[in-house]
Every structure is written in C-alpha cells, then in structure tokens.
C-alpha cells in the first residue's frame, strides 16, 4: 500500500558522494551529498544537505519529514556509521492528541509543522532516509494552494514547540523559501534532462514515486510528433521507429518468432534496462549527446562535460524518446524497476550505435578484456549465431552500452571513493550479469515476466512472495443500520449500568488507585523495575483500577510529568497455553511474530542485557494463576526480568487468591515477586450504592430504597460489582415491561428489584420439582422414602423402584413399568436433580439427590 519504500521492504544502499570535509572540532568527516539506491531496482537518488527528506518512521504511510542539515560519518558507532543531522517537521497526526485542538482549525491534509523543540534528538542514521520531498513554506496569511500539482507536496505554515502553534518567524520563512528554491534548482540539472514533461520543481523522489504516471504522460506526449529537430536526430528517429510502428509489426513479429517467442525482444529490452543502475543511464544520456559517443570505440576517454551540454542533450533525448513508443508502453507494465529517466537516456544511446553497426563487432572484440565483464562476454559469444535481426542487434548493443557505462562511471569517480563504490558496484551489478544469461534463456518462452524476475540477482534467495497483509486487521463487519440511541430514561440508565460502560471515575477505589499509581510512577521516575501483586475476588475492580492508573500515567507522560513508557497487557485467560504469553508480549512490544521459545529468548535478551536507554515497559498480567506451569518457568521469567537493572520493567500481576504466591509458587518465584502486595476487598453495601449513584448521576430511574436494597443484597452475597449492575439492569427491564401497560414513566421500585434478584439467584431446583410430572415427583418421593428407610444418602435404582411400586400401591395408582421409571430417572439425572451413574448399570445404578431432602420435601408438599 505504501508509496514509500522503506528499508524493511527493499534493502537500500547508501553511499557518500563527493569528498569528505573534515570537521576540525568534531573530528568526523562531513559530506555534502548522499546517494541511495535500492538493490531491487537500481535507481539512484541523490540527496544534498539542505534538502527536505522523508525519514523512515513507525508508520509506512506517513514517514517523518525533516530538513537535512548535515551528513557525516561517525566512526564511534558500530553500525549505521553514516549519520545525518536533521531539523524535524511534525505532521499533525504526530502532535499529541490532547494538544491537537490548540491548532484551532482543521489541518490541511498535507500540512506539516516546523518542530521547534531543541530537546528532540536530531541525530539520525542516514540510512533511515527514504527520499527527498518537496516542502512549500507559506506565510501565515497565505492560503494553501487549492489545486495541488502533486499530492506529495507538503506545506509548512506554523511551527510547533510541544506547547503551542506559532507562525513561522520571518527569517525562518525566508530561509525555507530560499531553500525551496535551492532545492528545485539543485534538482534542475537532473530534471531538465530527464523529465521534460514534468514540472521542474519535482524532486527525484517524487519522480520515482510517480513514475507510473509520468511514463503514462510521457508516452502519450510522445505519440504526438513535434517539430523536427536536427537532421541527425531525425534520421535516427526514422531508423529506430521503423520496425516498431504498428504497420510493420507483423514483420517484426515474424522475425521474433523465428528467434523464439513473440514479444521476447521487448522483454529483453526491458530486462536489460532494468538491470542498469540509474547513475549509469544518466551518464549514458550525457554521452549520447557528446560527440565522443559517435565514436563508440573511444569511450574510454569521455571527457568531463559541463552543464552547458545538458540542454542540448536533453532536447536530443526528447526527440529520440518519441521514437520508442511501443517499447515504452510495455515497460509501463513493468514499472517497478524502470523510470522514465532511464528510458530517455537509453533511447538516446541506442540509435547512435545503430548508425554505426560496423563498429559493434570491433567493440565486442575488445570487450572481453574488461575483467568484470567476462561473464557477459561468454554469453555474447555464445549468442553470436543468433545475431540475425535488427531488434536483436539493438538489444545486444544496449547491453554493450551498459557495460560501457559501467566502465566510464568508475573512471568518473573521485579517487577517494572509487574503492568503496566499486566494491558496491560489484555487489549490485556484477553478480547480476551472469544471472541474466540463464534467466533470459530459460524464460524465453514464458509469456510474461514477473517483476520479481526482473529485479536482478540481489534477492534471488527469497522468492518474492505475493504480498499478503501481514498485519491484517480483522474486524467484524460494521452494521448496516445505525445503532439507536436510548430514548427513555430507563434505556439511558440501562446503558450506563452496563458493565462495559466506562465510568468517569472509579468510586471507592481511590486508595488502591493511589497506591498503584504511586508504585508505577515511582518506578518510572526512578527508571527501575519492580513487581506488584494485586489480588481480589472477581468483580472488585482490579483490572479497571489498573487500566485507570495506566490511563492517568499516559496523560501524565504526555505532559512530561513522568517519563514516557510502553504499556503491554496480557491476560492468562486469553492465552491458549502459558508459554504463549511470551509471544503476546513480544508482539505487543515490537510487532514481531515468532514462536514461543524464540520469543522467550528475545525477551530475555531485551530485558536482561544492557541495552541502550529505552523507555520503561509497564506489563500488566491479568489472571496470573493461569500462567502456572509445572516448572513455573513462565512465572519465574516474568518476575525475574524486572530484577535486572537494565530491564526497566514494571510488572503488575492480577489474580483472585490472596495467597497465590505462597500456595502455588515455588520459593524462588515468590521471592522474586516481592512483597508489594495489594488486595482488593469485596465492595461493601455502601460502596456498591455509591457506585450505582455515580453511574446514575443526573438520571432519576431508581428509587433510593431500591438501590439500598440491591447494594445490601449483593454485598451480602459476593460484593461483586458486576452482579450489582446486572441486577439493576434487569430491574429496569422488568420495570419497563410493567409500565408498558399503563404508559407511565417508570421508576424502578423495590418490587422490581426483588423480582430481578429472585430471577437471578433463586434456585431453580424447587421450581423444577414443582413442575415435574406426577411420575417424576413419585420417583422423588420414593427416593426420600428409601433414604429414610436405609438411613443412607444413596440407593440403587432397584431399591427405589420397589419403593416406588409400593408407594403407588398405597395410593392406588397404576404403577409404572421399569422402562418408564428408568426414563424418569435418567431425565431427572440429566437435569442434575439426581446424581446417577451411567445407565449401563441398569438396575444396579446408584442414585443420589443433588438437592437437599428438605428442599424436595418442601417442593413436593407445596401443591
């Protein structure tokens, strides 16, 4: 999806351009320019100091924006020696949510802000640079341009200093505007040559990004012939165009068929081009215009040309470009490795060579001497027999030109960098060349070339997989009809009483909240780690309190009251297996997805080794008891990590039992857990009432007595706040049902609540017995009689059956058959009124009551 290629996806190579300038004070070498190229697609982007660049960030869609201030090499670092100093810009989305309102208007879609915050780290690795970007500075009274030429252009109007937005100072504005001009100027030499159709202000990065569009536009414009140019160029045009025009296509194709497959030549052309790096092509283009080129044999001494040549060459390029419409069209489909820049250059080269076909042979003969090209040559010789058609020759020549470009480029290099660069060159181009040969031969009959095949050689080990969304965000589809909002008081009350409704505050847990807050805050401030164990019966607000603490701390971190921290939450119940906790933690920390064992190693490495200064991690482990394993290694690790000095890990654990550490944990585990314990007492009736009152603020839906009643009932039962809320919710429903008949606005009364409590807590056994059939009731009676007779709480079916028959005789009822009684017995057993053995035992199965005898008697007597 992302239009920016970042390092994770395509490995890029960064190299310095120009001589190093030694900075005397700082003892490192600074540079003026850096070049980057991707291995998969050998375009090259040069970035100079002072340009605006995109920096790789967390969000691929929105990379960071900055102005390049300095480029230098830092030898003190082990990796990423190439450093850059930047001045940051921030996007609106990077401004903390709580501060966004300070802007006072809707931000422009492409708006960024000058980041006026000196404390921010501005020393970055140069290898995180993605590419240049265009930034337009606007004065405070200027409007954002409405018709954007490029949606990538960013606008800066205000500065942001973490406190408020300010308009850009005049000097700054002037400087930025100047820079902007410089930016566009410094790109002009490139642009003028390459992108004649595009506006000159386009930066190269945009160029790369937009190459699809540009190739479209250029191909379109190319189809309309413009004024004639120099006769030389004209002639080239005709020559080149001839075999490719639609009229002559058939002949061309036949020639292709003779060689192998139709379209192969085109593909080959694309292929060759795609393998040549951007830089070379640029040189080629220049060469095309230079007189030397017309004598290809002397390519070795191409002199350094000056800027004046550029204009001429560009016009020439433009003309020759038009000749190659069909080829370019094909290339459009394979845009991943092509850029119009290269095409222009390339096309200018080709015809010039064609004009002198006689010299080709000569060059070929020479070329084997070039060491790095030995592999190609063999291929070339091998294919000599096939050099029959014009198209073929042409391709071959492109290849040659390629080589030549390589050579020349190396010669162009400033001496200081030759070694460095050439090694890189070998990396990129040399291995690619031998591969080209077999690839081409094997693929000749395949109708289409996949992009992955075109990207030469650098990534041959891993076949390019069709990209699947790695972090697919699953979601239940959204609803078609809008959810209705509550209409009546009772509905509103019900909504607020739902357990899921997040209350503004957590009443009655102030003390616990404060304790946990202080604990975590102190750890954050001290930059140390620690463990805390929180216990309490279900529904006492443990998790809610911790969430609230974290929410407050996050707010505090935004206002810089406490250092920022990373928060990770895992729940033992939401894991399939204790060891999965590692996977979850790692995934939430870094986004990596690995196996449990590997995750454990990575986490141990992260927390136990002396790392760079990173922010504290707060880990909440809910339902801790489920992480218990036989070896207790999971728990051990969780409690061991915080003890490491460098870990900066605060672990908050939640479980139900107060004495869990003593009961199930080994000594070495519980010792690491430490003594920071907290237990949440069940809510008292006063607290429950307070919770209800705070939830129903401003809503008069409940009688006062009713609330009192439910609070007392629940406090007596369990002190579970969830129960309390559920009962109240049910009571509102009952109330609503009652008042449907007489249409009066309801108030939940004690009666309604009693009904709700009864519904939820009354044992269903008694109603079940009351509603049982006559035979079932008789059977229960028989059980009671048998129990009384034997004095035991258990009897076999046979005994009960005899008892049953006797009872029936006494009452003069027809006694049931064995099968019927058996059915009755198993029916009662399936409801769990009785506890019965499996029915295989038949007459001998033992029967017990699951209810107390008194309850049965009571239920049977009632009718």
């Amino acid at each position: 999806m992302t239009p920016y290629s970042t390092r994770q996806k395509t490995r890029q190579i960064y190299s310095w351009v120009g001589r190093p300038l030694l900075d005397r004070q700082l003892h490192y070498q600074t540079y003026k320019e850096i070049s980057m190229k991707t291995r998969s697609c050998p375009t090259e982007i040069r970035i100079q100091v002072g340009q605006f660049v995109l920096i790789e960030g967390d969000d691929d869609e929105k990379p960071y924006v900055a102005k390049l201030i300095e480029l230098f090499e830092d030898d003190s670092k082990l990796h990423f020696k190439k450093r850059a100093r930047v001045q940051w810009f921030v996007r609106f989305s990077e401004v903390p949510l709580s501060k966004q309102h300070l802007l006072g208007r809707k931000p422009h879609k492409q708006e960024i802000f000058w980041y006026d915050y000196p404390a921010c780290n501005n020393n970055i690795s140069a290898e995180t640079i993605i590419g240049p970007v265009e930034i337009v500075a606007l004065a405070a009274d200027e409007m954002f341009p409405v018709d954007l030429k490029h949606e990538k252009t960013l606008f800066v109007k205000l500065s942001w200093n973490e406190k408020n937005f300010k308009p850009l100072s005049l000097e700054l504005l002037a400087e930025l505007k100047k820079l902007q001009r410089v930016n566009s100027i410094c790109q002009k030499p490139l642009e003028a040559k390459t992108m004649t159709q595009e506006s000159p202000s386009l930066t190269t990065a945009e160029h790369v990004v937009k190459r699809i569009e540009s190739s479209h536009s250029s191909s379109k414009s190319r189809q309309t012939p413009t004024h004639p140019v120099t006769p030389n160029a004209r002639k080239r045009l005709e020559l080149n165009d001839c075999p490719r025009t639609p009229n002559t296509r058939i002949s061309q194709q036949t020639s292709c068929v003779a060689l192998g497959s139709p379209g192969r030549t085109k593909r080959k052309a694309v292929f060759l081009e795609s393998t040549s790096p951007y830089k070379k092509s640029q040189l080629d283009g220049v060469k095309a215009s230079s007189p030397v080129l017309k004598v290809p044999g002397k390519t070795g001494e191409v002199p350094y040309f000056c800027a004046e040549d550029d204009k001429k060459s560009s016009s020439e390029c433009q003309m020759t470009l038009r000749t190659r419409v069909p080829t370019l069209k094909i290339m459009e489909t394979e845009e991943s490795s092509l850029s119009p820049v290269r095409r222009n250059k390339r096309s200018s080269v080709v015809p010039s060579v064609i004009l002198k076909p006689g010299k080709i042979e000569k060059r070929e003969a020479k070329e084997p001497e070039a060491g790095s090209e030995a592999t190609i040559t063999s291929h070339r010789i091998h294919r000599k027999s096939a050099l029959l058609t014009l198209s073929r020759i042409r391709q071959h020549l492109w290849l040659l030109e390629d080589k030549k470009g390589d050579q020349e480029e190396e010669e162009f290099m400033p001496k200081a960098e030759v070694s460095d660069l050439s090694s890189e060159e070998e990396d990129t181009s040399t291995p690619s060349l031998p591969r080209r040969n077999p690839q081409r031969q094997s693929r000749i009959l395949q109708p289409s070339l996949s992009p992955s095949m075109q990207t030469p050689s650098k990534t041959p080990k891993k076949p390019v997989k069709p990209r699947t969304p790695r972090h697919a965000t699953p979601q239940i589809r959204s609803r078609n009809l809008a959810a209705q909002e509550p209409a009546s008081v009772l509905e509103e009350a019900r909504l607020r009483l739902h357990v899921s409704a997040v209350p503004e505050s957590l009443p009655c847990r102030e003390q616990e909240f404060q304790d946990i807050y202080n604990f975590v805050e102190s750890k954050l401030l001290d930059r140390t780690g620690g463990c805390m164990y929180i216990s309490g019966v279900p529904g006492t607000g443990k998790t809610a309190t911790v969430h609230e603490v974290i929410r407050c701390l996050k707010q505090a971190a935004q206002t810089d009251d406490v250092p920022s921290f990373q928060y990770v939450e895992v729940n033992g119940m939401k894991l399939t297996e204790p060891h999965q906790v590692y996977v979850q933690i790692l995934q939430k920390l870094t986004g990596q997805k690995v196996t449990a064992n590997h995750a454990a190693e990575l986490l141990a490495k992260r927390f136990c080794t002396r790392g760079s200064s990173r922010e504290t991690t707060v880990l909440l482990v809910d339902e801790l008891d489920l992480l218990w394993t036989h070896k207790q290694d999971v728990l051990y690790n969780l409690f061991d990590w915080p003890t490491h000095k460098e870990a900066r890990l605060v672990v908050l654990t939640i479980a139900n039992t107060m004495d869990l550490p003593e009961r199930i944990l080994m000594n070495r585990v519980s010792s690491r857990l430490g003594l920071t314990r907290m237990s949440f007492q069940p809510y008292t009736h006063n607290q429950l009432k307070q919770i209800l009152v705070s939830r129903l603020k401003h809503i008069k839906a409940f009688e006062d007595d009713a609330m009192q009643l439910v609070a007392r009932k629940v406090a007596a039962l369990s002190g579970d706040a969830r129960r309390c809320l559920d009962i109240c919710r049910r009571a509102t429903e009952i109330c609503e049902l009652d008042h449907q008949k007489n249409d009066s606005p309801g108030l939940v009364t004690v009666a309604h609540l009693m009904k709700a409590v009864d519904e939820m807590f009354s044992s269903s056994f008694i109603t079940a017995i009351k509603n049982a059939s006559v035979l079932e009731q008789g059977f229960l009676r028989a059980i009671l009689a048998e129990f009384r007779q034997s004095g035991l709480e258990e009897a076999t079916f046979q005994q009960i059956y005899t008892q049953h028959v006797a009872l029936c005789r006494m009452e003069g009822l027809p006694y049931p058959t064995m099968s019927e009684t058996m059915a009755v017995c198993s029916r009662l057993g399936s409801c769990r009124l009785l506890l019965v053995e499996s029915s295989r035992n038949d007459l001998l199965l033992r029967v017990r009551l699951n209810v107390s005898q008194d309850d049965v008697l009571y239920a049977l007597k009632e009718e």
Partner: protein
Amino acid sequence: MSNRKSKNNNLIHAECLLQVQRTLRERFCHQSPHGNLFGIQVQYKHLIELLKRTAIYGESNSVLIIGPRGSGKTLLINHALKELMEIEVSENVLQVHLNGLLQINDKIALKEITRQLNLENVVGDKVFGSFAENLSFLLDALRKGDRISSCPVIFVLDEFDLFVHHKNQTLLYNLFDISQSAQTPVAVIGLTCRLDILELLEKRVKSRFSHRQIHLMNSFGFPQYIKIFKEQLSLPAEFPDKLFAEKWNENVQRLSEDRSVQEVLQKQFNVSKNLRSLHMLLMLALHRITASHPFMTSADLMEANQLCSMDSKANIVHGLSVLEICLIIAMKHLNDIYEEEPFNFQMVYNEFQKFVQRKAHSVYNFEKPVVMKAFEHLQQLELIKPMERTSVNSQREYQLMKLLLDNTQIMNALQKYPNCPTDVRQWATSSLSWL
C-alpha cells in the same frame, strides 16, 4: 353402509391421507419455528426483547436458557431468531451457532466461529493458523468493534454444559468478557438442560456472566395439555382438501372430548410432561391411519400408549427359551435366598438341577454345556451382568453375576409367556414348591 361409502371415497382419501401424514409427521419430527409456542410466552418475550436490544441498541448480553430435555429450548431460540430476522434488523446481526457435541474443544470452536463470521478470508494466505493465533486473531477481531458501529453477533451455544468442560473455560471466559466490555456487541445465549449450570462455571467466568436465566419448565397443567394435543393433531387451514380437513379437525375435537382418550392423555401426562413424548404417542397413532381407517380413534391412541409404556425387558423375556426362563427363575430364587448376593453359574446350575430332578415333568435335563450356553446367551442380552470385568483366565462357571430383572418383572413376563409349562410357572411362584 358407511363402510361402502368410504370405499367409494377411497381414492381421494388415500391421497389426502398421504398429505395428512406428511404434514403431521413434519410437525412432530422437525422443530419447525412455525408452530405455536405453548406456555412459554413470558420467556419468549424476555428473550426477544434481549435480542432486539442487542440488534438495535448494540447492547451486549448473555443469557442461559435452562430447561429439561424436550421443554422447547431450541424451539424458543429458533422462534426468537426467526422473528428477529423478520423485523428490519435482519441485515444487522450475525449469527454463530455452536453445539457442545460438535465443537468438543475450544480449538474447533474457534475455527467454527471464524468460519461462521466469514473472517477466514482476512487471515491471509493460510486459512487457519495455530490455536493460539486463531484465538488472538478472533479476539482482535472482536476487540476492534464498538457499540455504535459494529455489527452485533449472536452466539448460540447449544449444549452449553459441555463447553464448561473445555480447558480453562477459555472460550466462555472470552465470550462473556466481550459481552461485559465495550467491544463488538454480542449476545451469548446458552442452552442447557442442567439446572446446576452456574455452579459449573469457574468463578471468573461466572462473575462475567450476567446471571440472566430463562427457565423452561413445562409448567402447564392437564387442560392445557389437551389443548396442545388438539392443536398438534389439527390440520392447518391451508390444507388443500378443505372438506377433509374440516372432517379431520372435527374428529380431533371429538377425540379430545372422549373419555378414554383423556385417560390415555392423562396417563401420558403423568409420566412425562414434555411434548416430545406426546409427539411420539401421536406419531404411533398416526401410523394406524389407512384408507380404510381414515380417522383416528381412541383405540389407536390407547394402542399407541401401550406401545409407549411397554417394558422393554419384559419383551426380551418373552422371547427366551424355556431353559433360559428356568435359569432366570433359578436366579430369582437365589436372589430371594441370599438376599441380592451375587451368584455364579454353578449355583444357578445346581438350583436348576434340583428343580429338574425333583419336580419337573416337562423340562428335559439338559447337559451342563447346553445350560452354560443358555447362561451366556442371557449375559449377552444383558439380563445378567458380571460383577467384575471378564478376564481370560477366570473360570466362567465361577464368575459372579447379578440379575438385572426385578421380581415383579419376572412374574409379569411369565404370566404373558406363551406356552409356559405349568410346573415351571409353579416353581416360579414358590421357591419351596419342589419340596
């Protein structure tokens, strides 16, 4: 004369009757949500309100429908879902149906949920990952939603009590947790016949369950039972042959007022109140309807009732040979003498020998292997049961056995046993008669 008349109408009747049998059988066998609900209107109202609130307001709920087998739990939920789908919200809810007998562990259940929510295409190239991946995937999916925008999901867990036995009750915890937090609105509906279901829930799971229970207890009386009987047997108004339907319904009306029919129904009602047993009775009666006998009579119902209440073991005893009967009688005597102590083959054989030598005139003195064979046959029929598991090297003659027939059963069976020799019958009544 009426007989001849009906013969004339035979052809029409035959067609009608086929139709009658089809409609009624469909009604008895399928739990179609089209039928009427009997005596569960209050519960129905509770459930449908709950579902509507989930569908319309996006309120999460959880509820258990509890009732003995055959009390109409599935009928209730099917009815409610059908009505929910008929009102405008049909596009607005997703349904997930799980059954504890099919989804025997959480892994399978998760896959099934993913499948039914049509989420598997989001997983990417591999359809289902590991159990852990699936769980976090599904939880992520459900966590993403909120009350206002997400489509509510109705989870129907049939045989809810079986989900309780899954490891850690992970699935239930997560479902209930979602229903109690501001995530995708869900309604979790559990159907179970266990009255003690709440005690099976783990304390954390229990705390998250809303404790709403809808009890279905077959709480109707006999007058209503007769009404149900009438309604179940009546032909619908859309029956093609109006005339026949009218006649049939008239007959049903007459039946319901018939004394003997009421007696049959009362008997059935006393045994079991659930509607399935009534359906069974009516089904058996329906089989007796033929072209020559187009209308149900009280005799049909009585016969059907007899079939229903038949003692299966007595039926097996009817099919035994005289020798086997003799062995059973010997066992009965042993039971009487030794007070339910287990016996072995040798004891039974001795008892049988005593009877044959002293008393029997009609029973041939079979050899021991033959008697052994008969004894083994009884064991195969599970009329006698070994006390311990049969091991290879134990001697069969001395293996301890128990009789799985009651005295009353034996006596009843003997009375009906065809061509039972008199001396055997006498021997059965008195264990001392051989003296």
